[in-house]
Every structure is written in structure tokens, then in C-alpha cells.
């Protein structure tokens, strides 16, 4: 491992790139070579160091921690001369060090426990030696020298680790099935096809700590008796793909992958397979079809992949987060792991917290934490002191839960019983301004678009659900629609081939169950209580507050607003397209939505 006296972290946030971050890096590299300092000063790329609009392009030099901002490549020769050669801080560019901002992953908040995310931001993912320094591959060493495959499976069973992809099947059991299945060739697969909109937990793990996943897979391969594995990563994650490929290469060069791993008889190798843009490929049988070079269409189970998987051979498929947990369980023990969580759901879970809470981003919490604690303690409460309305868990196949469910402990069973699912870890908190019918419509738009089309209940059913929801949002809803939504949902759920179709009605069923009032308001009163559905709202100008400033009239794209200067304006309701621009531009709160 090379040692440097200084490390320069350059922000390559998209905004900084636009402002010339790469030119800065090139120039810095040239200048360091010119001054003979290239072996002493290391340049690393990082995410944003401060607000890029204000500070970018910027860099921080360690160990001093000097934050230089608003640089251009012209400034570099002087910066190198002053800072590195003369040892003086160039005050003109040095900003007071503000806290580094990683909008996706901040320092752990109260009630968070970081297990899967523990190394992220701490190590250089492109250097395997950094992972070694954090006990990397120690678990693999322990497994290969001290444990039999059955011991490993027993340890994972004792830890009660369950699949983090969403279904929550006990991982140890899955491994045992694959081990017991007959066949001389067996495969290990990592499902890194993280497709739920807004869920990016796995991406950060793959980009920030790829070796934890690789180590977990090697241990699984040893337990199951496999010599070949694949990581199926979605093509939308190019950085994850390149990080994984590099990590695999480095692991191979250290004898951690390939023939006779760590000098034992055990051999295993890995390959990354890149998806081609199909959400349904996150379903395990569709994923297998895709690796085999076919259309990513699911098939009926059983036979389960553990018996008949890739090319008909026994195959173990786990999610990124599941594998990342494995080395930590082996090192710290099943007892430590199972001390966190509820009776049936052990350990921690990562979530991508989004929506109307103050702190959005990645979080990792122990199972059993209440939804209220996530929304208010970790999430920092609702933005703008608005009222909480619902929390949506489980991605597009999940459900929406109202305030009365906030004290529910988060685990696989309770979320399922409440009408939602754990899913892979998307979590959206919604405030009072959200229309739940519109949310159901939004999710249904997604699922009907992503339905692969193989089975009729899903292909036709999701389309029909969407049509009904669109009708309700447009003000054409009837009483029969409510029954049809319910009945159709039941049919789709029971008769669809795979998890996508079976879960697709969840957003509809859960909103029908918990927010029936809103459906009724749309249907019987032709009213959208949250004032979201355009067809059901009107914009009006209030006599009192309107100063006749003409801003609304000038901004209206269809010239539907008329009125003399300094007199109350009027909206022509027939011409109004309800775009809401007048509402946004009015500075006197004179526009009322009803």
C-alpha cells in the first residue's frame, strides 16, 4: 500500500463536473507531476464537499482539512506552489470548513444502527486493501479454515437472517435447499437488479463496499458447494458495474476468487451480468431467464431455483444486502446478530427514506423500530410542520399505511398483516397535501408499464385498474368502480404468475382500506380533498388579498385571467387549464384552490 503525505479530495458532484471539476483534476495531476510531487500527493474523487452551487468546483486537502472553493484550473499552479511547496494556505480560496454533505447518506442519526452500511464512506471501494483494513475477508478465512459447509449454514440459520430483497425467506434454509439439491454443478447468484423507484440502498453498497457482497457470495458458495457465481446488476448503475468488475479483479489477484481460494481445495469465480432495462428481471425466475439470454419473463414456481435454476441447475439467489450481512454474522456471531430486531425478523434493514420528511436519504435501523420513530426521530418529522398522512413501504408493490399504524413495529410479518410489505427498502412519507387516489394511480401506471405481458391477470388487470383510477381522478368515478377495483385486485393477486402481478394491486387495496373517504369524495362529491387531481379543482382569485398586480394574468399560458391594474382579477373557468402557475406566482396568497 502506497503512503501519501497529503490527500486531495475533489468533488465530482454533477454540478461541479459542469463547472469544470475534471479539468481541475487534470490540471492538478499535471502540476503535481511537474513539481515532482505526484508520489507524495494522492488525488481522489468524491461526492460533494459543500453546496456545489455556492462552492463548486471545490476540493479539500487532508490532513490539514483545508477546503478550497470556486477554483478553476488556472488557479492550480499557484495552489500547488503555495500549499504543497511553501506550506501556506491560499486564503483567497479557502472557505471555512463546512460539514461535508452527502445527501444520500449522512452520519448515523439516533436509533440508527449501521451494519450493512458500516464501511460506506469509510473505505475506498476501489482499493481492496482498504477493505482488508476493516476486517475484510476475515470471515472468509474463518469459514475456510474453521468451519464446515454445514457449520456455516447452521450459523446463518441461528442468526435468523432473512432475505432482504423483500420476501424475507430464511437465508440459511435457502442455502440448505441448494446444498441438498442433487447436481454436480450449482450456481450462486446475487440479485443486484434494484429496480424499485426511489430505492437505492443496494447501489450504495455496491458502489461503496463491493467486497462485502463478494465475500458474502464466496461464503455462500462454500456452504452450498458452488464453483461459479453471477452478479446480475442493472445497467442503470454503471458505476456499480465498474466498481464490481474492479473489485472482482482485485479479489482474484489476492487469491480470494478463482482456483484454490486461500490455498484450500475450494474454488469459486464470479462474473458480472448487466441487465438491459426491465424491471421484472428483479423477479428471480425472470432474472435467470435474462442471464440465459432470453426474454426476462418469469415462470411458475415450483420448481424453485434452489432445485432447478440457472440452466436447470440448483441455484441460490440472494439480494445484495443479504450477502453483505453474511461476513458480519460470521465474524461477530449469530448471537450478536439475533440480539437486534424482533422475534422473527433479526438484524437491521436499510431503507431509502423519501418524501415529505426533513431528513431524506439512506438509513439503517434495527427491525422492530416503529414507523413513527423512522418518520419523526430518524426522518426528523414532516417538512414545514405539515400533518402526516401516510407512509408507503415496499416500493410499487407495497402499500400505504395511515397515521393509526405509526406505532407498528417494522418487521416482515406486521407490515404484511397491515396490508403493506417490507419490500426491498423504499419508504416514502407523505403529508396532508398528497392525494391517495392519485398515489394509487401513479403506482399503477408504473406496474402496468413494467408488466412483462406473459400472463393475462397482470397484463390486462393492471391496465384495467389504471383505467378505473384515471376515471376516478378525472371525476368520472361511479359507485361500481369501488367494487370493481376490489374484485379485480383480488383476481390479479390470486392469479398472477409472479410477485410483480401478485403485488401490483397492493397500492390500490391498501388505499381502499385506509383512505376510503378520499375515494368517496372523488366519486360522490367530485372533490379531491388534497386538491391534487386537476379535473376536480378550481382556481379562484380572492377579492380581498388581490392587489391587481397583473402577475397572474401575465404568466397565464392560456390568457384565462383578465382584470385592470390595481383591480381584482378574474379567472375564466372555461378557458382555465388548471396548470397552477397563477397559484405559484401570486405573492399575496390571493389564489384559492377549491
Amino acid at each position: 500500500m502506497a503512503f501519501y503525505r497529503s490527500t486531495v479530495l475533489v468533488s465530482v458532484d454533477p454540478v461541479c463536473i459542469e463547472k469544470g471539476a475534471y479539468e481541475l483534476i487534470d490540471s492538478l495531476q499535471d502540476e503535481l507531476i511537474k513539481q515532482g510531487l505526484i508520489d507524495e500527493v494522492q488525488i481522489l474523487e468524491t461526492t460533494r464537499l459543500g453546496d456545489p452551487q455556492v462552492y463548486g468546483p471545490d476540493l479539500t486537502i487532508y490532513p490539514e482539512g483545508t477546503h478550497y472553493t470556486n477554483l478553476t484550473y488556472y488557479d492550480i499552479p499557484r495552489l500547488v506552489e503555495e500549499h504543497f511547496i511553501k506550506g501556506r494556505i491560499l486564503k483567497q480560496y479557502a472557505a471555512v470548513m463546512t460539514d461535508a454533505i452527502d445527501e444520500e447518506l449522512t452520519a448515523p442519526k439516533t436509533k440508527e444502527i449501521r451494519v450493512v452500511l458500516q464501511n460506506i464512506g469509510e473505505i475506498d471501494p476501489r482499493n481492496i486493501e482498504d477493505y482488508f483494513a476493516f476486517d475484510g475477508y476475515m470471515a472468509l478465512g474463518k469459514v475456510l479454515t474453521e468451519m464446515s459447509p454445514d457449520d456455516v449454514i447452521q450459523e446463518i440459520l441461528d442468526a435468523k437472517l432473512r432475505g432482504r430483497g423483500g420476501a424475507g425467506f430464511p437465508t440459511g434454509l435457502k442455502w440448505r435447499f441448494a446444498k441438498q439439491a442433487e447436481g454436480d454443478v450449482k450456481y450462486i447468484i446475487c440479485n443486484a437488479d434494484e429496480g424499485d423507484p426511489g430505492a437505492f440502498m443496494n447501489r450504495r453498497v455496491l458502489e461503496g463496499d463491493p467486497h462485502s457482497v463478494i465475500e458474502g457470495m464466496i461464503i455462500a458458495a462454500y456452504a452450498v458447494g458452488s464453483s461459479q457465481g453471477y452478479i446480475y446488476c442493472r445497467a442503470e448503475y454503471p458505476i456499480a458495474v465498474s466498481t464490481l468488475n474492479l473489485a472482482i479483479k482485485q479479489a482474484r489477484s489476492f487469491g480470494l476468487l478463482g482456483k484454490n481460494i486461500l490455498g484450500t481445495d475450494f474454488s469459486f469465480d464470479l462474473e458480472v451480468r448487466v441487465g438491459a432495462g426491465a424491471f421484472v428481471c428483479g423477479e428471480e425466475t425472470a432474472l435467470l431467464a435474462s442471464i440465459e439470454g432470453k426474454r426476462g419473463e418469469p415462470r411458475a414456481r415450483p420448481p424453485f431455483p434452489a432445485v432447478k435454476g440457472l440452466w436447470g441447475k440448483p441455484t441460490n439467489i440472494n439480494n445484495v444486502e443479504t450477502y453483505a450481512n453474511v461476513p458480519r454474522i460470521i465474524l461477530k456471531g449469530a448471537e450478536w446478530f439475533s440480539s437486534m430486531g424482533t422475534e422473527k425478523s433479526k438484524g437491521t434493514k436499510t431503507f431509502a427514506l423519501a418524501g415529505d420528511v426533513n431528513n431524506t436519504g439512506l438509513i439503517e435501523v434495527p427491525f422492530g423500530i416503529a414507523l413513527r420513530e423512522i418518520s419523526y426521530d430518524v426522518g426528523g418529522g414532516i417538512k414545514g410542520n405539515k400533518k402526516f398522512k401516510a407512509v408507503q413501504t415496499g416500493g410499487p408493490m407495497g402499500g400505504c399505511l395511515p397515521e393509526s399504524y405509526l406505532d407498528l413495529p417494522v418487521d416482515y410479518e406486521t407490515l404484511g398483516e397491515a396490508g403493506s410489505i417490507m419490500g426491498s427498502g423504499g419508504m416514502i412519507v407523505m403529508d396532508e397535501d398528497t392525494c391517495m387516489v392519485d398515489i394509487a394511480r401513479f403506482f399503477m401506471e408504473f406496474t402496468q408499464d413494467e408488466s412483462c405481458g406473459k400472463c393475462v391477470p397482470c397484463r390486462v388487470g393492471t391496465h384495467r385498474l389504471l383505467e378505473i383510477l384515471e376515471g376516478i381522478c378525472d371525476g368520472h368515478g361511479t359507485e361500481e368502480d369501488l367494487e370493481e377495483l376490489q374484485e379485480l385486485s383480488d383476481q390479479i393477486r390470486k392469479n398472477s404468475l409472479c410477485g410483480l402481478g401478485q403485488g401490483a394491486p397492493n397500492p390500490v387495496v391498501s388505499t381502499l382500506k385506509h383512505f376510503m373517504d378520499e375515494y368517496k369524495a372523488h366519486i360522490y362529491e367530485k372533490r379531491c380533498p388534497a386538491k391534487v387531481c386537476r379535473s376536480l379543482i378550481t382556481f379562484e382569485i380572492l377579492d380581498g388579498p388581490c392587489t391587481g398586480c397583473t402577475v397572474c394574468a401575465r404568466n397565464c399560458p392560456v390568457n384565462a385571467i383578465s382584470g385592470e391594474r390595481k383591480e381584482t382579477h378574474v379567472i375564466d373557468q372555461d378557458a382555465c387549464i388548471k396548470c397552477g402557475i397563477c397559484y405559484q406566482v401570486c405573492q399575496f396568497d390571493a389564489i384559492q384552490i377549491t
Partner: protein
Amino acid sequence: MVSDQIKETEQLEDIREIVEKIGSTRADLIPVLQEITNKFGYISQLAIKELSDLMSLPTKEILSVATFYRMLSTQPRGEHIIQFCESAPCHVVGGREVFSALQDALGLEPGQTSADNKWTLLTTSCLGVCGIGPVILVDTDMYGNVTSDQVKNILSRYD
């Protein structure tokens, strides 16, 4: 016509090279199709016929795979491909306004290619960078925290 024939021969040579590099088993089909899409912008009828011979697969099989995946295209695409993330997290932080600015600037509907063959506008599923939404991907360059008035500036970088 002669130049067309030369082009065809060149394309066939490139396709053979790609298959040689990646492989000709069934499992190699999707990586091969991805490489062809990257190289030529789309998978032509000619390419499908050639692949059918090289990989011993019926053309209908290749077509059925090529039309299944969003990132594979059987239609010609422009020089630069713009992908706009249409998922909920981008949507709620102003994605809708940015997308209409993008459509106005290009004069294109999603899925269309400009008459001069310079741009193709596509929507994409979640890119997983929800912390910096709204997000635009131009070829492989990602732009985050995009506002409507930045759209023209971003496009002008590809002049």
C-alpha cells in the same frame, strides 16, 4: 448504392468482431445485442440476420429478445441519447417542469428522434440517484439537481 454496400459490409464485419469478442452461446445474446446497440445506435434487420447465422438462433428469437428490453432498440436512434428519469422521487422535486423544458428545447416527444438525427429523447426507469433529482442522462453523462433553465446549457455542451 455502392457506398451503401460498403457500409453494409463494414457493419457485418463489426458484428462478426463483436460476436467473436463476446461469444456465440445463447447466454451471450444480450451482451452482444447491447454492444451492437452501443456501436450502431440500434439493431438493424441486417444485424439480426447476421446474428441468426453466427449464433445459430432463429431471427424471431433474436427479435423477441431485442424488443423486450428497454435498453435495446430496433429503431434507429440519434447521435446523442437523452434519458430522463420519470420516477416518483424525481417527479416530486420538479421533474415535470424540467421534462417539459427538455421537450420544448428539443421539440420531441418521448421515444422520438430529431429530424437531423442528433437527439433521441427517452424516459428511463429510476436511475437510483434520487438524492440529486431531477436527473438527466445524456449518453453516459449524468446531470443532477437540474432546473428548467439549465436545460439549454446542458444541450449546448453537445454542439
